[in-house]
């Protein structure tokens, strides 16, 4: 059985590892995109402008209610169509361009992550001690200074458990991009299954790899949480 997972022409170890690399790349590229969207959503829902608040609320509510796979298809098919329609309008002779599955994956997963992160960050903002912000203002800090020196370090502490869960969910959701033909871990497993006719063995191997990534993430996140809380006295 182990020769199935060996390197080289006979085994599928190298193909699966290459798929794993794509999966990890996708997750790591998506994370900052999602975090930025999350911060934007959190700021929007705390804004003084009711229009911005409505946009923030609409975005987080709608994205959280839709199946991730639907979002992925909407982005993959929709943005592709939109891109080409715009291109055609700009330049009627333009050739049809393809929206890359990787980009679609980053945009779709980032949007989902951002919607959930927006809620986590909003909750974290709300648990900040308002007195500290006022104290910062009293000693003449600018809003940017208050955000960077007082709010952000504590925001991190409050939001980390929630964001950690979202990271793990996103890591698992990357499996969906195999459906739009990105050669990630899941897709490479499928290819291996097609040739070897051993579906259970290979899908189990894929599951074990995802599982290992999640358990590893949990361990790292627990450490980060301990570090984020190092200055806090337990009641």
């Amino acid at each position, binding site marked *: 059985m182990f020769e199935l997972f060996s390197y080289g022409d006979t085994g599928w170890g190298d193909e699966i590892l290459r798929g794993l690399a794509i999966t990890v790349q996708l997750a790591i590229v998506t994370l900052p995109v999602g975090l930025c969207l999350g911060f934007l959503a959190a700021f929007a829902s705390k804004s003084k402008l009711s229009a911005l608040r409505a946009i923030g609320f609409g975005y987080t509510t*709608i994205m959280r*209610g*839709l*199946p*991730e*796979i*639907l979002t992925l*298809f*909407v982005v993959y*098919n*929709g943005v592709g*169509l939109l891109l080409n329609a715009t291109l055609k309008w700009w330049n009627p002779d333009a050739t049809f361009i393809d929206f890359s599955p990787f980009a679609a994956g980053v945009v779709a997963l980032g949007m989902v992550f951002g919607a959930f992160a927006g809620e986590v960050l909003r909750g974290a903002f709300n648990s900040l001690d308002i007195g500290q912000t006022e104290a910062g203002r009293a000693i003449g800090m600018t809003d940017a200074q208050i955000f960077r020196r007082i709010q952000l370090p504590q925001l991190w502490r409050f939001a980390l458990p929630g964001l950690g869960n979202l990271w*793990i969910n996103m890591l*698992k*959701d*990357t*499996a*969906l991009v*195999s*459906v739009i033909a990105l050669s990630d871990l*899941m897709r490479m497993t*499928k290819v291996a*299954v097609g040739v070897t*006719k*051993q*579906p*259970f*063995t290979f*899908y*189990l191997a*894929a*599951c074990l790899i*995802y*599982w290992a990534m*999640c*358990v590893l993430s949990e361990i790292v996140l627990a450490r980060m949480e301990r570090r984020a809380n190092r200055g806090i006295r337990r009641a």
Partner: protein
Amino acid sequence: MNPMDILIQYWPRLLDGTLMTIKLTLLGALIAGMVSPFFALVRVHSSPIAQAPLRLYISFMRGTPILAQLFLIFYGSGQFRPFLQEWGLWAFFRDPFNCALLAFVLNSTAYQTEILRGGIMGVPQGEIEAAKAIGMSRARALRRVIFPHAYRIAWPALGNEVILLMKASALASIVTVFDLMGRTRQIFSRSFDFSVYLWAALIYLCITAIFVLLWHQSERRLSRHIDRPGKPRAHVPAKKETQA
């Protein structure tokens, strides 16, 4: 094509898909809901060694993508075909609906077990002692005191889990179950009209919204003996007694 035309032309398919999505979700959540209380009790009361297999199962279900679990069951069962045929189980595993349902039940059981465990552990010790003091048997205390309160604590989280399951049920379309997502993809592949995705999104949002409303109603009903809805459920000590 006009978005309305798509809806007029294809509404029977969309309706059919919607019913399938609801069926998958409710069946999955219900079957998982019948198993999870027993698992939750094991998680609360058994020795760590007895719990080990259950914890492994829960960790696996929470640590792997549902899509991978679905493929493991649907395609993976093919590897054991002779064995399954011998046992007369092949007919079950050949049907994508059954495989999808099985995957969702296994997945949701893991999540619901952990949610209920939290609920059971949230029941105040005093209530359990009081039940013992008036001579309730263990089974009766579970049925009349512990589980009613545990479910009340766990209810909002269980509602979230059902919504997550509803969203996950869209994955069944990948193994050729014609749920709402499956029908949507089918219509898109015929008409190449993008608006069908937007209709599907709207339907999913409606299902979620209606479910949230119903769930809130049921939550209110579960807590109807607590006179201040919306307030924290922690029991408030009567002031006179504490000051006396």
